[in-house]
């Protein structure tokens, strides 16, 4: 049962931030509420005040600039991202990720900001955005700050957002040349949550031979979307070969910190991390070779 609360519909971002600073831990932000309302119904969250930012135009945008890269407002719906021609052109991996994220109904109403702030370790955007080297813009009523999205996730359902702070925007830098990013999740029923997911981003030198940068991120295999940095390092400076791939994906599964639940044992999750890492690194590499 959802407990009663005071509903606050700020008319602008400034007012929203003022409410936040005023009600602190007594309040919660609601975007699309696709996760929050379920928690509230289960009585896991029962705020006294609910601040609705869903309708704030200032936070609902998708912009691309060849220097600054992509900027997605926090209340942009998943569906808007999925349908954006800008994103399709510059970050197709986000489209594929969105197409397999929950149901169309949920994507129609749910927001990217809400998804990230919920910080579900099995969430899809986290790993991809980390692989894309994204940063997030955060603000309270007095100041703004940005941080790599990698540092945004602290623990299960816990983020770096401090009291009074709001997630405003996701910023994705322009993709370096000879770079490709891919993502895949393993699940039994399509569009449901990942049992394990892997995002990989590979950058090659100008001749498309050696790896100059690699980012590999595991989803649902740790308390947070987890970069497997040792595995990444093994790739840097190397040429693609099966022996290397085997070592890399083994390392990735060693770096994973999965837990068992009713959907999979810890061992199986580790194993999936290995299988998917191999597949993703290979795919990213192949795409990077042919990319501009």
């Amino acid at each position, binding site marked *: *049962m*959802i407990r009663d609360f005071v509903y606050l519909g700020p008319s602008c971002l400034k007012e929203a931030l003022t409410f936040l600073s005023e009600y602190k831990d007594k309040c919660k932000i609601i975007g699309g509420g696709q996760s929050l309302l379920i928690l509230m119904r289960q009585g896991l969250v029962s705020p006294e005040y609910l601040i609705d930012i869903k309708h704030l135009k200032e936070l609902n945008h998708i912009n691309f600039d060849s220097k600054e890269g992509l900027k997605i407002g926090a209340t942009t719906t998943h569906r808007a991202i999925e349908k954006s021609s800008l994103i399709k052109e510059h970050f197709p991996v986000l489209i594929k990720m969105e197409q397999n994220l929950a149901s169309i109904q949920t994507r129609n109403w749910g927001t990217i900001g809400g998804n990230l702030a919920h910080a579900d370790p099995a969430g899809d955007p986290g790993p991809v955005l980390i692989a894309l080297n994204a940063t997030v813009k955060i603000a309270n009523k007095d100041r703004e700050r940005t941080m790599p999205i990698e540092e945004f996730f602290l623990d299960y359902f816990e983020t770096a957002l401090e009291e009074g702070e709001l997630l405003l925007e996701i910023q994705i830098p322009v993709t370096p040349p000879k770079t490709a990013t891919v993502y895949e999740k*393993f699940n*039994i*029923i*399509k*569009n*449901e*949550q990942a049992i394990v997911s892997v995002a990989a981003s590979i950058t090659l030198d100008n001749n498309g031979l050696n790896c100059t940068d690699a980012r590999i991120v595991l989803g649902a295999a740790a308390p947070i979307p987890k970069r497997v940095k040792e595995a990444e390092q093994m790739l840097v400076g190397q040429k693609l070969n099966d022996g290397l791939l085997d070592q890399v994906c083994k390392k990735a599964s060693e770096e994973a910190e999965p837990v068992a639940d*009713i*959907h*999979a*044992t810890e061992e*199986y999750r580790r*194993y*999936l991390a290995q*299988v998917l890492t191999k597949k993703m690194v290979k795919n990213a590499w192949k795409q990077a070779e042919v990319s501009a």
Partner: protein
Amino acid sequence: MKKYSVINSPVHNIDGIAKVTGRATYAFDVKLPSMLYGKILRSPYPHAKILNIDTSKAERLNGVKAVVTGKDTLGIKQGIWRRFKELCDEEILSRSKVRYIGEPVAAVAAVDEDLAEEALDLIEVEYEPLAAVFDPVEAIKEGAPQLHENAERNINVTRHIEWGDVEEGFKEADYIREDWFRCSSQHHVCMETHNAVASYTPDRKLTVWTSTQSHYYIQVLLAWTLGLRENDIRVISRYTGGGFGSKFELDSAQFCASLLSMKLFRPVKIVLTREEEFIATKRRTPMFYYLRTGVKKDGTFLAKEGRVFTEGGAYTSMGATALYLTGFFQAFPYVWPNYRYDGYRVYTNTEPSSAMRGFGAPQATFAAETQIDLIANDLGIDPIEIRRKNAMYAGYEVPGQAWIQSCGLRECLDKVEEWIKSRGKLPLNRGIGIAAYGFMSGGIFNWFDTPYAFSSAMVKVNIDGKVDLYIGSQDMGQGSNTTMAMICAEELGIRLEDIRLHMGDTDICPVDLGAWGSRETLMQGNAVKMASAEAKQQILEFAAAKLAPNIVYDLDIKDRWAHLIARPERGISYYDVVIEAIRGRDGQPIIGRGHYTPHRKGMISPAYSFGVQAVEADIDPDTGKISLINCVTAHDCGQVINPLAVEGQLEGAIAMAAGYGFTEDLPMDEGKILNPNLVDYKVLRAREMPETKVIEVETYEPEGPFGAKEAGEGLTNPTAGALSNAIFHAAGVSIKNLPITPEKVLNALREKDDKKEQ
């Protein structure tokens, strides 16, 4: 000229428009003036004594109107096996003891749902936790915690079937194989959760709107447990949002809402949440199967010995029937000269297991069909061939059990074989597996101890030719309303739109035992046909008088034309003759009555459906993940009445049975179900469905209306077995433990590789 003018043609369901326009009113939608909302407090312990319940705080909460506990009941231990007292073991609000997590201990009525829920937190229950047991094999051991006084070693029911001489059979056998199988549980997941609106009025009459498969059973069980006269209770169930076996026993919503309403003389509505639905209704019976099978080297079946322990959960419910049927269908659909089955249903401190679509047969079919392919493989015989060699046939008698009057199994095997051949060579990591199956068309057993006929119907012909058809059967989506109307129209020689159907209301409808065990088409169908024929006969008497034919001529009605069969042009309009007939009878409407009760039809059922299903599946060797590609079913349900409904039943059964095969399960920890929601409980969705194809193999069943048999429930039997065989043929591993998860497949593949290396 077509043999039939109404049946065997696709039609819109007669309640279709109500359903696609949102006008169909389910009990879930019922709202009455001054209605209150109820909630049920449930046990957090798998096994505990109730020492005391203090409801005073809850009663003081503003807006709470009443709280009831076991003390407010007559303390009757009820059950659906009314003939056997000791199998009636469930008080819906227990007075002394709880035996599973989720068992009701109290119920609240308040002005709104949230208040009722709040009040639950204010009820103080003092429990004395008891040692609990969850595994039947543990529960049967000496010294295990005992759930029920009279159930030594927690043995609830045992069933034994035997024919021939099994020992002799094994002596003759060239090859004997033993296997062990674990069949998991499954939840019905009806889209409409269990619910009831009960309204007790000062004239001491109780009306209950509810979602049920049998309004008659609910009427009787409520009368018994509430101490009311049966027909002072009216149960209304116009629409039922899915049943699948979960909705013909008395449930906590029906009982608690009634109890609260009787205390308050106000309508009370209780709707179970999805979580309550999962933890505290009923579920498919988990089974541990041992099979020992002896065959000749040419594949001829000689002897089979089956032993089963079923996880009964806390109460008997319908589990006793599932225990018998799994034993019977373990020998289906083949000729076994020697067979022995010993089945044990063991009480455990878990949610009671009971009836679910297939009723013990899907478990039996999974184990049997998986083992048959292993045997065929061991002996180097083709899976189709070994089944063809041993298939049942029309005229076969299952010794002491059943008589098969119609059986299209061999033709089904031929059709499926053709399809498999048409697939040619399959790509790597893909396989096709088959499973043969059969099912009953309604049970002949009467453990409910009804004095009524199993099915009854009434037909009333009005002056304008419109016909009122009164039936007791319950449409829960399977389309029985339409099927019955079609049978009535066909028999009377009129059109579907001439029928006005009355169902789902004990005040109006003649008794039928309800929609379970695939009863309706055959049993209710026979009653409807008989009632229609009786009405038609009365009309034809007047037609004969009018047409004055030579006495040797027979008359009939077809497409609203009453005529001489030999000379169809000599006739009279149905409308005109109806007017004549009613006038001629001093204005009485024409009334036909029909009923059906099986007599001398063996132990199980008057008729059996048969079929063969082929499942084509891919396995990802890297992850063990299974994807369904095709599912083709050749199916003998006798004469098809409603083709669209048969196709729908078949495809729906595949989705549910494939779920049983590889995604659905109810994992527990100390009796607590760990996935009581639709996020963690995985039902198949659109993207997981294979292409489906139905091949109708028509036979004529003498016992069925127009030769019709069961078509729907039995279709859940083959899929899990066919899937496990597909995996066996694709990857050479056999998984005997449902559900067949990617992890199990992967581990099996690895074991296989390890063996190779050694």
